[in-house]
């Protein structure tokens, strides 16, 4: 057994749990606060043992002048964000919590980004380094604390969004951003087609747009940056309307991020013949208003985010038809939330050489297929 790392005692327990599971052939359900448990496929193994990181918590180091924060995986997201806010900084990808027990490790493993994603970047764009336990119980470090780091393959970024399939995150180093000096939100009444055209047009200009969404016949634009830039943009885009009152604006963007906005309430399970679900569509830029395949002649309700690149559909849509249709547009679809488990996989399928590479990577990191089997993909 290779012993190239002196493992801290608390992590040694996890390492032993992993090695024992490997010997017994027992799966491990890796998690933190359980706030993203709804997301992804169900685990392939019914009797998976829990491996919970929520007790392994705390900010290890935070250097505002370096734009870096290093935290143990079980650190509550609320605690991390409060520490950053105190120094006028923030996580650029504006992650959803989906519950107050959300941890930074789970946040990185889930790879979900909030309203700021198209302006600032995704979770993986801010990952500088990670420490992890692999499927052999070995403690490994990749990346570091500096953004300019091309030594070796980018395993740190690979772990973002991997839903625990490759290993157990124990520590993450993230780049942070200064909070904007000024921020204003505009709410402009317009239809979907007009909103999408406007979003495309504005994105091609040097405007300080940090978020762009559309719901209920209203386009919402958040402007963030230097005061002069924000004021200039308000004049250019605002059509003379008063900006949204700040507390209401914050409330709106939070309701999108946390999916507490009324749009996201799943209709009752009995309301539709098929299992109702919240579908997430990811689309290329310049994608016009959608006419997705309908079920029972009822058009699903739509909420648009990320200037059009992320769109939510509520209501009964048939999975296979939707996936085929979205793929034709150059995008992909995720069954994000639903009342019932479904035989249909949550994510768009992988096949061919791409799937082969995935299988080999899984084998390399997790040779005994212990970690969250099936969650990211039925075969992984």
């Amino acid at each position, binding site marked *: 057994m290779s012993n190239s*790392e002196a493992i801290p005692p608390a992590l040694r327990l996890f390492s032993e749990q992993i090695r024992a599971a490997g010997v017994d052939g027992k799966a491990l359900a890796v998690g933190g606060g359980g706030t993203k448990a709804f997301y992804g496929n169900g685990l392939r193994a019914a009797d998976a043992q829990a491996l919970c990181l929520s007790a392994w918590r705390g900010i290890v180091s935070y250097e505002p*002048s370096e734009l870096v924060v290093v935290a143990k995986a079980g650190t509550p997201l609320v605690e991390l964000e409060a520490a950053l806010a105190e120094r006028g900084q923030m996580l650029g990808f504006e992650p959803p919590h989906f519950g107050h027990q959300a941890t930074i490790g789970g946040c990185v493993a889930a790879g979900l980004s909030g309203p700021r994603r198209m302006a600032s970047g995704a979770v993986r*764009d801010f990952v500088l380094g990670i420490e992890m336990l692999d499927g052999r119980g070995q403690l490994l470090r990749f990346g570091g604390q500096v953004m300019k780091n091309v030594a070796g393959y980018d395993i740190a970024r690979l772990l973002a969004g991997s839903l625990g399939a490759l290993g157990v995150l124990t520590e993450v180093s993230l780049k942070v951003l200064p909070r904007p000096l000024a921020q204003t939100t505009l709410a402009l009444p317009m239809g979907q087609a007009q909103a999408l055209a406007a979003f495309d047009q504005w994105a091609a200009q040097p405007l300080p747009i940090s978020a762009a969404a559309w719901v209920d016949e209203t386009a919402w634009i958040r402007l963030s940056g*230097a005061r002069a830039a924000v004021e200039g943009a308000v004049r250019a885009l605002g059509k003379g309307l008063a900006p949204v009152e700040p507390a209401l604006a914050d409330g709106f963007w939070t309701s999108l991020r946390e999916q507490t906005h009324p749009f996201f309430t799943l209709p009752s399970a009995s309301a539709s013949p098929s299992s109702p679900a919240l579908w997430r569509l990811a689309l*290329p830029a310049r994608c016009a208003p959608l006419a997705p395949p309908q079920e029972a002649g009822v058009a699903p309700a739509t909420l648009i985010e990320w200037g059009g690149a992320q769109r939510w559909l509520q209501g009964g849509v048939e999975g296979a038809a939707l996936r085929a249709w979205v793929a034709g547009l*150059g995008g992909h679809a995720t069954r994000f939330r639903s009342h019932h488990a479904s035989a249909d996989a949550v994510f768009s399928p992988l096949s061919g050489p*791409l799937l*082969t590479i995935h299988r080999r990577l899984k084998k390399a990191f997790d040779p005994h297929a212990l970690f969250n089997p099936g969650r990211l993909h039925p075969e992984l």
Partner: protein
Amino acid sequence: MPAVIDPPSLTDRDTQREPSVAAPHSPLAAQMPIDAARQQDVLSALRAVLPAHCVLWREEETRPYECDGLSMYRQLPMVVVLPETEAQVVAVLRRCRELGVPVVARGAGTGLSGGALPHAEGVLLGMAKFNRIVAIDPLARTATVQPGVRNLAISEAAAPHGLYYAPDPSSQVACSIGGNIAENSGGVHCLKYGLTVHNVLRARVVTIDGEVVELGGLAPDAPGLDLLALYVGSEGMLGVLTEATVKLVPKPALARVIMASFATVEAAGDAVSAIISAGIIPAGLEMIDRKGVAMVEPFAKAGYDLEAAAILLCESDGTPEEVAEEVAHMQAVFEGAGATRLAVSRSEPERLRFWAGRKNAFPAAGRVSPDYYCMDGTIPRKRLGEVLTAIEAMQERYGLRCANVFHAGDGNLHPLILFDANDRDELARADAFGVEILELCVAVGGTVTGEHGVGIEKINQMCSQFSRDELDLFLAVKHAFDPSGLLNPEKLIPTLHRCAEYGRMHVRGGHLPFADLPRF
């Protein structure tokens, strides 16, 4: 062809592909000779799938490919192929896989870590003919390009639409986007606009088995693992790029540069931290030390302060109002940090002149020294002063001058060691000086390469930066894409034996890996 090839166990891996030494492992080593009989076999296989003008083998034709920008390592390839279509790339890789021939891909050959150094038993796969800009979509703000397209050519093509491609390595007039993707290149503006990995949406890659995979996509968050992030910076080891889609960003209306002088390098380093602490993300933040200034000023005539211990170039871009606000803020911070002189560019030509010195550091070095060795390491910004002082002391010990120009905003150092390669002792000392700088970078919490890549140059230092378990996982990742180990072998990841020979094993917590392995 089997659908899934299980990786060998970790203990097998190092003995499985013990490299016959097929390229120089140090600048002082001689080139490996070409095996003529083998060359004929490889040639006849490749001539069956490529037009004659795409296959080169005579020494006078292959000599131009014997090195990249790291000219102290040279090796003639066995054969050079210059395909023109993706189908030809697929055919070449399949043939090479069948015959067990190593393949080294090359873009413009400007790389600084020997990533495109040929293999004596291998094919040098030149992608320069893949030089088409396939499409510019101004509303979607994307450019779809072939790998041989020059970095600057993308921005030139996007300019009529008020857009540009942000990552701007200093070699951008010559370097290829394929090479940028292989190295995850940065550049002056990456602090604000990101590295190559932040600006690429999609990569179309051919594996050694001749299969085409699409990584990433035009829609965000492609399903599955983020293989695009893994591919960017993989130094030609996982697959050959045949097309990519990159992000374009709107050109700012205005940009201004402040040139700030400081009496000590520590003060300059502290000023860099002060800028970031003030919540400013400059478009560019570069430092040049006194030796660097003395070297570049007669050449570029940029108006640099020859008296200063170090100067900072700090750029703001955006709308005129934004820039005015930000420049005032930056000036206030620099004054607070003890700047001895401040100058702000008043016009676009003046701004370009301020940058000319920094961007022309290499030609300037070439003017004052027969050879120079450009290092590349990254450290936490707060250790800048300390590291520069240590490098000053090393100059004394090695008896060689070293100028420093670099991306201070993200702690990415480029010490330029000046020497004469014709003097073998100077060559050896320059090499050793470089090694010591890199190890210092790791020791203060940084990395051995910020943007130039590991290639052949820093493969030994990987033994210092990573544990054996970590290096083994890198080998397993490589195996997942290239089980045959034929793509750019002996670059990037050192084997166990190499680390043992080099003697710089990473020892963490007092535990020596494989304690029973004999040491040489």
